């Protein structure tokens, strides 16, 4: 018994560790993308996203304002006062110096005598006061070497730019709605068709049923690339051309084999007695389908809906072939991101923001419906 308990707890540990690893593997890039999308281009190029979450310490050289323009005369002495940082920056000076050899010589608030009555002081908020005679306070501003702690600093500018600027190069808003226009019908249409087909294949007797099931399984392994060009030609010939209708049809066609297969396998596992009882109760096939099968198959339908939604959302190939034309009016998010890579290759903040906009909806869909995903998958395969 001890041995058994030992192995089972080791197994539990292995499961826990691999779960943690998988979560980390998934979380690391996603969080990185999210954090980067809230940073400026400068921040992204100067430090990694993980550094931005904490306060950072930096050594900078800042010149005071030009004494010739800003000095103030007081009792025949002169003074220049000001702030090392801009008004809205919440930085803190923890040490400073006046020479590049001793950058951390003084603490904030120290009054430093520079000789001949010249002095300078810098406090922790970056306010400085430089005093001396007319000659000393002339020419260029004095250099101050400061060790500065800056708090985490995030900006929503990127999102404003990507979502609300209306700029057709950077803007994602329009393509977001184009993607929704593709995705929602491309998810609903195949589920409706497949549910009917799956019921017939699972519970209705008709000649050729076995062959139909076999051909559905066969179609599962047909690569969709085979059909792209013939289908496009077909669409052009019957006058649909490039557009939403053709895209919905293509997604429906490519999604149907898996949908029929998953739903049929699920429905065939429903208890026969329930269906026969409904028959004895006087239900027609259609009533059995709508009142018994559909409610009971909800987990399987939800799990397929998630799949179909995710891969039509992330689809680029079908959209390129069947949807996007020269006007660019119907471009989808995936295509917009590809184009951003070309036009904005160096602007990581824009790319990260655009990418996060495009994964936000799948994340929401996944987290709200994941229990159906797991349950539906198990129910479909293991029964």
């Amino acid at each position, binding site marked *: 018994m001890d041995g058994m308990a030992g192995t089972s707890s080791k197994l539990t540990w292995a499961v826990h560790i691999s779960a943690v690893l998988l979560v980390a593997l998934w979380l690391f890039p996603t969080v990185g993308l999210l954090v980067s999308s809230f940073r400026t281009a400068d921040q992204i190029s100067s430090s990694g996203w993980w550094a931005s979450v904490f306060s950072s310490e930096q050594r900078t050289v800042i010149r005071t304002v030009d004494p010739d323009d800003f000095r103030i005369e007081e009792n025949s002495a002169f003074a220049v006062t000001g702030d090392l940082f801009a008004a809205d920056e919440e930085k803190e000076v923890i040490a400073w110096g006046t020479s590049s050899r001793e950058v951390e010589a003084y603490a904030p608030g120290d009054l430093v005598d520079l000789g001949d009555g010249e002095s300078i002081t810098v406090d922790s908020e970056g306010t400085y006061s430089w005093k001396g005679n007319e000659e000393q306070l002339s020419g260029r501003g004095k250099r101050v070497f400061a060790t500065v702690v800056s708090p985490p600093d995030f900006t929503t500018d990127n999102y404003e730019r990507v979502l609300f600027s209306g700029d057709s190069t950077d803007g994602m808003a329009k393509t977001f709605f184009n993607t929704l226009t593709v995705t929602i019908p491309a998810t609903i249409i195949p589920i409706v068709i497949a549910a009917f087909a799956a019921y017939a294949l699972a519970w209705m007797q008709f000649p050729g049923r076995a062959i139909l099931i076999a051909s559905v399984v066969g179609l599962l392994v047909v690569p969709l690339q085979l059909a792209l060009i013939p289908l496009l030609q077909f669409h052009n010939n019957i006058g649909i051309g490039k557009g939403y209708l053709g895209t919905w049809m293509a997604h429906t066609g490519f999604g149907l084999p898996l949908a029929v297969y998953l739903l049929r396998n699920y429905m065939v596992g429903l*208890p026969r007695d329930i269906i026969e*009882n409904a*028959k*004895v109760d006087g*239900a027609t096939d259609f*009533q059995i389908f709508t*009142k*018994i099968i559909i409610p*009971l198959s909800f987990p399987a339908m939800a799990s397929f809906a998630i799949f179909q939604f995710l891969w039509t959302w992330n689809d680029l190939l079908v959209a390129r072939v069947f949807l996007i034309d020269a006007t660019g009016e119907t471009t989808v998010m995936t295509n917009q991101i590809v184009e951003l890579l070309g036009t904005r290759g160096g602007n990581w903040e824009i790319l990260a923001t655009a990418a996060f906009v495009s994964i936000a909806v799948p994340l929401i869909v996944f987290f709200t419906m994941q229990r159906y995903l797991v349950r539906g998958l198990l129910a479909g395969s293991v029964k």
Partner: protein
Amino acid sequence: MADIKLTDVNKIYGGKVHVLKDINLDIEKGELIVFVGPSGCGKSTLLRMIAGLETITSGRLEIDHEHVNDVPPAQRGIAMVFQSYALYPHMTVRENMSFALKLAKKSPQEITESVDRAARILQLEPFLDRLPKALSGGQRQRVAIGRSIVRDPKVYLFDEPLSNLDAALRVATRIEIAQLKEQMPDSTMIYVTHDQVEAMTLADRIVVLTVGEGIGQVGNPLQLYERPENEFVAQFIGSPAMNLLPGKIIATGKQTTVRIAGGGVAVSDAPSKSSDENLKVNVGVRPEDFSETKGDYIFEGEVDIVEALGEVTQLYFKAQKGGDPIIGKLAGIHSGLRGETVRLTAEPNKVQVFHEGKSLYYR
């Protein structure tokens, strides 16, 4: 509320497997008929054929003098209770019970009335708004029965309705079904089971089905017990099974005398003709009909195993070659019989004689 007539009904699967052979059966209005038989005899199939869930390969099925071979289940005026209860898991008890009525487009008032009535009969009132998963096995079973009562059918069909319940609940529900039958004396019920106690206690008549040979015997429970028509029924009804002892007829007439191979002599009330002399027969005696004797005996043997149950004592004798062990069941407590040689005899009216499997009582 209807009589059912089966004429030469056959069921053949895939053109080869002959499950039910030449079933002829008249079920009268208001009867409770029980189908019993070993597994694989097709008792459930026969029930499903009456329900319309299986096609009838050949023969004729009439319900209420109407030929219903090709009538869909819903129009046959039947209600069926399944072994697995087959409740709709996504509907409450009330919705489950009103489903058929809604499909039949009954008025909401009518539906509420009949559901409430059925719920009252079956004491389901507190559970009407629960889902099946929140009910115990016995409650689910009652919902399944309630669902059929609500439809007020001509014929009730029960497919092993108690086999998913535990022993105590099974007895309670069995009594409930018997009471239900008494409350509805006009309704015809067909009940499939493999449990003999259910069959003996519930049935007006029992139909014993054989494997592939059609009906073994139809009759009321005690008739089947006391005068089985053939060896199959004799051994199927009763537990432990009836003992069969091979022998030869030595005297004929109103009573038949048989010399048992290996010693004893059995006298039976079964009549025989003089031409039957020297006929090879099997003598059948139920274990509980044996009694211990010092004089003339039917069977003599050495006790192999003794099972003292208090109420009775079961004696297992060493099996004769190729046969089942002979079993005797004596009332009361008998100790110290193990290894002893015991003689057993039985009253002539409790002794059956079978020739080629058929009882001499039925010639």
